[in-house]
C-alpha cells in the first residue's frame, strides 16, 4: 500500500496544490507546513513549466513568477528533502511530461523515491502514453496518478481499472481555475469509477469555497484545490502562509461537517 492511501483515512481528504518557488522556495516551504498543520491530507507540489497548457491564468502566472525567480527541478528536490524532516503527509509532484523526460525519467523518478515523493501527476500523459513513465514509476514505488475528465465517457472504466494512488477527477471542461458553478454530471462518473476500482478518487478544477468542497465531497473521497491557494500566494506573496493555513482549515472543517 502506498503512503497516498493514508491521505484518505481521516474522513474526506483535502488536497492542496502549491506551485514551488512562487514567490520563492522558503515561502513554499512555509506554505506547505501551514497547509499540513491545518489539516491538508496530501499536497501536490507543482514544478513550474514554461508552457503549462492545462492551466488557467492563475496557475500560469505562478509558473512564470517561479521560473523568473530562478527555481529549478534540482532546487525543488532540495526543498522536498528539507520538508521531509518534519512533514509526514503524502506529497506528490504535479508537472508536465517534458520536465520529467528532459531530466531523465529514471533519474527524476528515482530521486522522487529517495526524497520521499509518493506520486506523480502529469496532465499531458493520458492513458495511451503512460508506458512512457509507468514501468519506471512501478520500479521505484512512485504512483503515477491517472486523470478522468468530463469527456472520458467510455474511457472511465479502462482508466479506473489501472488507477494507482488516487484518481484525479477533473470536474469541468477547460483549464484549471475557479468556477462559480460545476455542471458536469460527476455522480455518474464516480459511479463508473467505483464499479471498477477501490482506489480513492478526488475531484479538482474549479473548487474554491467550503460550500463547493462539502458538496463535492458528498460524491467522492476528497477534493483538490489549486488556483484558490495560488491566488493567496499571488495576493500576499511572502506573507501568504498564515492565510493559506486559515484557508485550509476552513476547507477541511467543511469536509468534516
Amino acid at each position, binding site marked *: 500500500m502506498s503512503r497516498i492511501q493514508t491521505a484518505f483515512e481521516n474522513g474526506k481528504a483535502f488536497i492542496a496544490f502549491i506551485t514551488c518557488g512562487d514567490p520563492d522556495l522558503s515561502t513554499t516551504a512555509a506554505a506547505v507546513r501551514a497547509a499540513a498543520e491545518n489539516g491538508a491530507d496530501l499536497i501536490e507540489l507543482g514544478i513550474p513549466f514554461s508552457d503549462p497548457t492545462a492551466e488557467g491564468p492563475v496557475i500560469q502566472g505562478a509558473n512564470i513568477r517561479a521560473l523568473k525567480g530562478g527555481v529549478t527541478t534540482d532546487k525543488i528536490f532540495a526543498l522536498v528533502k528539507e520538508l521531509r524532516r518534519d512533514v509526514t503527509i503524502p506529497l506528490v509532484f504535479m508537472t508536465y511530461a517534458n520536465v520529467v523526460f528532459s531530466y531523465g525519467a529514471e533519474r527524476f523518478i528515482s530521486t522522487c523515491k529517495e526524497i520521499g515523493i509518493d506520486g506523480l501527476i502529469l*496532465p*499531458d500523459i493520458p492513458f495511451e502514453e503512460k508506458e512512457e513513465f509507468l514501468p519506471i514509476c512501478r520500479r521505484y514505488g512512485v504512483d503515477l496518478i491517472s486523470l478522468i475528465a468530463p469527456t472520458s465517457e467510455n474511457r472511465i472504466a479502462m482508466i479506473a481499472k489501472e488507477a494507482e494512488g488516487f484518481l484525479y477527477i477533473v470536474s469541468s471542461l477547460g483549464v484549471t481555475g475557479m468556477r462559480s458553478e460545476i455542471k458536469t454530471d460527476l455522480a455518474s462518473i464516480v459511479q463508473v469509477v467505483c464499479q471498477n476500482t477501490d482506489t480513492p478518487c478526488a475531484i479538482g478544477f474549479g473548487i474554491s469555497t467550503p460550500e463547493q468542497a462539502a458538496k463535492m465531497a458528498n460524491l467522492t473521497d476528497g477534493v483538490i484545490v489549486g488556483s484558490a491557494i495560488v491566488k493567496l500566494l499571488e495576493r500576499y506573496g511572502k506573507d501568504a502562509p498564515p492565510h493559506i493555513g486559515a484557508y485550509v482549515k476552513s476547507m477541511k472543517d467543511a469536509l468534516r461537517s
Partner: protein
Amino acid sequence: MTNPKGRFGVHGGQYIPETLMNAVIELEQSYNHYKNDPAFNRELTELLNEYAGRPSRLYYAEKMTKDLGGAKIYLKREDLNHTGAHKINNVLGQALLAKKMGKTRLIAETGAGQHGVATATAAALMGMECVVFMGEEDTRRQALNVYRMRLLGAQVIPVTSGTATLKDAVSEAMREWTSRISDTHYCLGSVMGPHPFPTIVRDFQAVISKEIKEQILQKEGRLPDAVIACVGGGSNAIGSFYHFIEDKDVRLIGCEAAGRGINTFETAATISTGRLGIFHGMKSYFCQDEYGQIAPVYSISAGLDYPGVGPEHAYLHDIGRAEYVPVTDDEAVCAFEYLAKTEGIIPAIESSHAVAHALKIAPKMDSDQIVVITISGRGDKDCAAIARYRGEDIHE
C-alpha cells in the same frame, strides 16, 4: 509510415490532457473513414482546383538559373494559391472534414497569419464560426493579416502569455479546445501536435509533391536532384518531400530559421540546436533548457518562430533521409530581395529561407542537375518588416 499510435520512429504520440482524448480519437476515426470516401475526395479536389487555384505552377526560374550558373532551378508556386500560401491546402481538407463531423466552429493558431487567414477563409466559405489565436507580438508584426482575418468574419484573439508568439498561440488554442469540444474543431496549421494531426496535415499537404513529381516528369522527363523547403512546424516541407521519400536519389532539404545565428540564443533552428522532448502533444525535437523549459525562440519570420518541429521531420532527420540546415535572418532577407529583383517574385520571408539555401548550393551543382524550391507563400505581408530590417519605416 505512421504506425497505429501515430509514431514516426520514437517521435509523435498523443501527449495531451485526458479531456481531449476522445476528441482526437473521434477525429482519427472520421479521418480514416473520409480519406477513402470518393465523394469526400471529389469535393475536396473540386475546392482545391476551383476555389484555391490548384494545381500550382512549377515555374522554371531561368534568370536565376543563369545568374547562379549551376543547377536548373524550378519554383513550386504555392504563393499563387488563393490566400497566398500553401496553408489553404490543409485548411480546406480539415474544414471539410470538420463539417462532415458536424462541427460548426473552427479554432486555429497562427504565426505569420497565413494559416489564420486560410482558416478564416474556409470558415467564411463553409459558413462556420472562426476564432484565431495569434501571439500579440505577431499581431503587431503581421497587422495586415489580422485585418484580413477580421474582414473574413473571424475573431482574432491576441495571446499575451509566455513569449506572445506562435508557441503561445498553439497553447492557447489547445486550452480553448479543452473548454469547448462538442461543436469545435481545432484546425491545426502544421504537421505537429498530437496524433492524428501530423498525419492529417501531411496528407492534405502532400498534394504539393504529387504535383511537383508530375510536373517535373512532364517538363524534364526525370526527377529533381534536390527539393528545398522552409521548416517551422514543417507542413510545406513535408508536403514537398512526401512523394519523394521513396526516391532515394532526391535530396530533401529543410531550411530552419536560425534567426541571428545558431550560436546565439536568438534562434529557432530546432534540429540544429534542440533536443528530444515532449511538448504540444508530441515527442520530437525542441529548443529547451537543461531542465526542459521551452526556450523563447526568435526568427525574423513569424511563421518559423516555433521551438519545435513536426515528428515526421524529426524521424526523417534521425534516419538521414532528409537534411536540415539553418538559415539566418540576414541570409533570408537577402534571398527575399534577390528573388524579387531576379525573377519578379516576392516570396514570403518564410519561403525566403529556402531560397537562401538554394543560393548557396545551386552554383556548386552541375547544369544538368535540377533543384526545386517550394515558394510556400507570397511576401506582401512581409514588406513592412523587411523595410524596417533595412532601416526604412513604411506604413502599411
